[in-house]
């Protein structure tokens, strides 16, 4: 029995002009962009989908049915805050009924015990709770919401008491990087089975706030040691998964297992994306689940085909020995930082922009923190 799974779709089909995709494994369902929190690191787009543009219950159910038929294993019910939708229990029930493994990704704010009970009965498999800090002060500063920490703690304990497996997801940046050991302790105290220590990925609101969020290199290095020591100490109690920041990396990350290779996202308004930040690549043509089945989108949507495999690559990626390892990294980051989504991700040491990336990180990390200067996530005022 092997932990990993299925042949990497891209390795066997990459040189062909239109590689035939293997079926996707994961679906990120962004049910709504509404959220009680206003986190400065949010990776949602700056232009949030409004409530009136959201897909209705029946359309989401059809999407889940199509996802299961297509071969999706995990569905991540996310947002925004997915429980802000009145039909969250009904949607969860449907997803579970068609055979999907349902993971609720939540802020934990405003979820009552009765709702939790209903989600359990509906077949929700797992809950992932966001953690902004290890205490009330940092949590409020990061999330722009008073009383968040206490509510999250109560929610976490209720989740565990009900018998759900709980994962805490802590996005790390300059405002909370000093609390990593405390967050690990809290995860154990709350009864979580997994903790994700995920350094911020700079998209959406996080990119806008990068100068307030970028941690210093020595702080990042310290957390690497802290995580390694905690993993050893907590073996069998808490699994810790860690993602370290791109800006200080030598090679880029393999984004979502490769573009259009393993996962897809659907926005609240119904656009199907190869990754949740893909809308920033303005020239791509995204298809909507209102007009196309998920199978059609996966096989033929122009946005999914655009960067599949390796045929789209330029140098230094095209001839790189790592082209099948990381597929050139993240297209969205290449666009945001170099102006061309077909460039190598500047996190790569072979990119002409790599030095500039390191310089940005060092400069921003050494500037004074101005908590008031961070822009909290929210809907644009009209």
């Amino acid at each position, binding site marked *: *029995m092997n932990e990993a799974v299925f042949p990497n779709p891209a390795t066997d089909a990459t040189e062909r002009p239109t590689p035939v995709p293997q079926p996707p494994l994961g679906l990120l369902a962004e049910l709504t962009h509404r959220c009680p929190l206003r986190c400065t690191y949010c990776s949602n787009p700056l232009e949030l989908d409004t409530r009136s543009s959201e897909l209705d219950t029946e359309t989401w159910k059809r999407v889940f049915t199509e996802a299961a038929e297509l071969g999706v294993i995990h569905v991540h019910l996310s947002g925004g805050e997915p429980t802000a939708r009145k039909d969250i229990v009904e949607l969860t029930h449907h997803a579970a009924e068609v055979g999907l493994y349902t993971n609720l990704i939540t802020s934990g704010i405003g979820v009552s015990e009765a709702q939790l009970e209903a989600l359990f009965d509906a077949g929700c498999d797992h809950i992932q709770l966001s953690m902004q800090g290890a205490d009330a002060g940092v949590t409020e500063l990061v999330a722009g919401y008073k009383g968040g920490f206490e509510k999250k703690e109560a929610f976490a304990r209720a989740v565990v008491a009900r018998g759900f*497996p709980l*994962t805490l997801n802590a996005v790390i940046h300059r405002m909370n990087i000093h609390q990593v050991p405390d967050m690990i302790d809290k995860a154990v105290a709350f009864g979580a089975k997994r903790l994700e220590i995920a350094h911020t990925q700079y998209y959406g609101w996080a990119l806008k706030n990068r100068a307030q969020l970028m941690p210093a290199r020595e702080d990042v290095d310290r957390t690497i040691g802290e995580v390694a020591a905690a993993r050893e100490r907590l073996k069998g109690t808490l699994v810790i998964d860690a993602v370290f920041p791109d800006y200080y990396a030598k090679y880029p990350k393999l984004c979502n297992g490769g573009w259009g290779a393993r996962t897809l996202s659907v926005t609240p308004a119904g656009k199907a994306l190869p990754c949740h930040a893909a809308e920033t690549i303005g020239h791509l043509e995204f298809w909507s689940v209102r007009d196309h089945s998920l199978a059609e989108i996966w096989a033929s949507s122009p946005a999914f085909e655009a960067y599949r495999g390796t045929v789209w690559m330029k140098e230094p990626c095209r001839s790189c020995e790592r082209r099948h390892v990381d597929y050139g990294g993240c297209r969205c980051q290449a666009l945001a930082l170099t102006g061309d989504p077909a460039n190598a991700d500047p996190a790569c040491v072979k990119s002409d922009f790599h030095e500039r990336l390191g310089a940005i990180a060092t400069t921003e990390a050494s500037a004074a923190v101005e908590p008031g200067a961070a822009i909290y996530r929210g809907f644009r005022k009209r």
Partner: protein
Amino acid sequence: MTAIADDTVPKLPHGVRFREDKTRDQFILVGPERIFNADQVATEILKRVDGKTTFGDILRQLTEAFTADEATIRPDVESFLIDLRDKQMVTL
């Protein structure tokens, strides 16, 4: 490695599912952010991890199904289940 008592009832905890993956023509064990491919032997064991059947009965059933010797398969089944317990995919 500690031994599993015969009257232990192995169970999949909430949040772990064992199911057929028709798309890829195999059985899989699914947990949070995890998918394990079950080979034929793993599939035969996991089909019997139903929260009712004891470890001893699972062994007896496998012995009959495969006309195998219990003493031979016991350590393999035991280490398989203990490994999954360490990954929080099975409770013992």
